[in-house]
């Protein structure tokens, strides 16, 4: 295939990827979008295989078969609740692949047309260095995120004195080694650079607590894109440059949305130390008392309501109560009650996670609304049914400037005529703060495991 023809094929592949993301603007066009993404990938791979430099296919086919089989099996078996870990693990693979490709380009520059060993063009070296460093940070950072999400290690932030100074120092050393590598093309410098970047990725993510994981995953998504773009410049490949830019900006936007939803600045997330142990911040409960009720009470109230808004949180997924919840919603709808679901952007462990969990339980996506779409409806709603969520309903975010979550957008559940709050106890949530909604006159606490409570309500209906 001529050089011009393959350049055009890579461009077509890049366009397929753009259209694939564009397809996600609505659920109806999304499946076609995914197919376009697959088409773009096939075009890119086939074009590369037709490259005159690619002669031996044995190893390539073996690699594709082994990797493809592993990937497919994992993708078919993974539970939707484990999506955040899976995505973190996948990001780490992109990062490591970037490191390996950078190494391959350094050891065999002729194959990529960027010079000969020891005589690589300076521009290519700079691009290679960036791809390598970002790829290595993505790799080790994603591994830490994976370990935290999979609960292989504690989700608590790991902080020690001088942490930020150490990171700064390592960052400067890395830049220095990077410059030295670009000037000398020394192989040891390349691997020292890789090792330093691995270490930085590790140190960057350990101080970030469990509550901030949605931001971390989005951020690593962005990094994996920039690493791909860096390698794309080295390989002078349009498909890779376009894709890197798309993925980089996608991850950056998602990080922004997540930070905004928690009212946290990106830098305060990066610096870490927030969220983890629920008992971190001691709270005074005072002598306020909360009313509690039974499943029968809840069933009675909801059956006689005109409209119900269900507010699910991550606790719902932990309790595996999605399917029971769907049954409850269906039963209520059969009774003529208008049932909708309100999703806070950080309801799950990653952007859009709760939507997937509800969709998995066959809850129609038309009944699932985002915070901005539904928040003004709470005052006209008879019942807000909060299950597995806490901090995202806490009015302290609006009223108490001292609160750690002050300024965070919340779902105004307390404005509904009645609030039914399913919770195991009055313990505070992730952010470690007490929720005034528990003690309001129009609130009834339903103390139980989320799944059991919903099942009992369904029986009582």
């Amino acid at each position: 295939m001529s050089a011009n023809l393959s350049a055009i094929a890579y461009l077509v592949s890049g366009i397929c990827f753009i259209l694939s993301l564009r397809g996600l603007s609505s659920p109806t066009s999304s499946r076609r979008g995914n197919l376009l993404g697959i088409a773009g990938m096939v075009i890119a791979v086939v074009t590369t295989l037709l490259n005159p430099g690619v002669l031996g296919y044995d190893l390539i086919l073996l690699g594709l078969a082994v990797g493809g089989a592993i990937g497919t099996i994992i993708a078919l078996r993974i539970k939707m609740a484990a999506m955040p870990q899976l995505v973190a693990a996948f990001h780490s693979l992109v990062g490591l692949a970037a490191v390996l490709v950078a190494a391959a380009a350094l050891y065999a520059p002729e194959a990529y047309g960027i010079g000969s060993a020891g005589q690589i063009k300076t521009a290519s070296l700079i691009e290679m260095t960036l791809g390598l460093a970002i790829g290595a940070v993505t790799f080790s950072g994603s591994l830490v995120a994976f370990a935290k999400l999979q609960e292989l290690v504690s989700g608590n932030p790991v902080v020690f004195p001088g942490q930020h100074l150490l990171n700064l120092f390592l960052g400067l050393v890395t830049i220095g080694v990077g410059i030295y590598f670009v000037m000398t093309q020394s192989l040891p410098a390349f691997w020292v650079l890789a090792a330093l970047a691995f270490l930085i990725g590790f140190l960057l993510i350990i101080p970030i607590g469990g509550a901030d994981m949605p931001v971390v995953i989005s951020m690593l998504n962005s990094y994996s894109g920039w690493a791909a773009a860096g390698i794309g410049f080295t390989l002078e490949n349009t498909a890779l440059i376009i894709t890197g830019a798309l993925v980089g900006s996608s991850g950056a936007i998602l990080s922004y949305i997540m930070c905004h939803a928690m009212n946290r600045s990106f830098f305060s997330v990066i610096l870490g130390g927030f969220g983890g142990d629920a008992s971190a911040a001691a709270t005074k409960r005072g002598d306020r008392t909360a009313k509690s009720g039974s499943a029968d009470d809840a069933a009675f109230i909801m059956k006689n309501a005109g409209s119900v808004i269900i507010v699910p949180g991550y606790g719902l997924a932990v309790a595996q109560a999605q399917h029971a919840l769907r049954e409850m919603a269906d039963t209520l709808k059969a009774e003529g009650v208008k049932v909708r679901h309100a999703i806070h952007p950080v309801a799950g462990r990653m952007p859009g996670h709760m939507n997937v969990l509800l969709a998995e339980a066959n809850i129609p996506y038309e009944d699932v609304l985002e915070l901005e779409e539904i928040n003004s409806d709470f005052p006209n709603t008879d019942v807000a049914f909060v299950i597995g969520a806490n901090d995202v309903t806490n009015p302290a975010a609006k009223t108490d400037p001292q609160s750690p979550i002050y300024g965070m957008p919340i779902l105004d559940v307390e404005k509904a005529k009645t609030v039914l709050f399913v919770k195991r106890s009055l313990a505070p949530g992730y952010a470690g703060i007490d929720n005034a909604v528990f003690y309001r006159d129009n609130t009834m606490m339903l103390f139980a495991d989320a799944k059991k409570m919903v099942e009992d309500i369904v029986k009582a209906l």
Partner: protein
Amino acid sequence: MVDVAAIDPFVFRLAIFVLAIFVGYYVVWSVTPALHTPLMSVTNAISSVIIVGALIAAGPEDMNLSKIFGFFAIVLAAVNIFGGFVVTQRMLQMFRKKR
């Protein structure tokens, strides 16, 4: 007159890169928040187009270090490509109209 031939091809690639960031910015903001998880899994799959670099490394017939790096990169990227697209499709199948 500017001599177009005198422009380093790097500048053209930079132009593509910058324009693609803008395209990405507008396209991603138009993604419905309900599909942010599939967005992340599909971006993960497409960023594995880095496999093109691995294929070139593994391409030559004679064995060398670069070819070994290429092979491992192919395996990792293939896990991502297949895993990413399959899991995205699985999720998107759930977002169907049900009545």
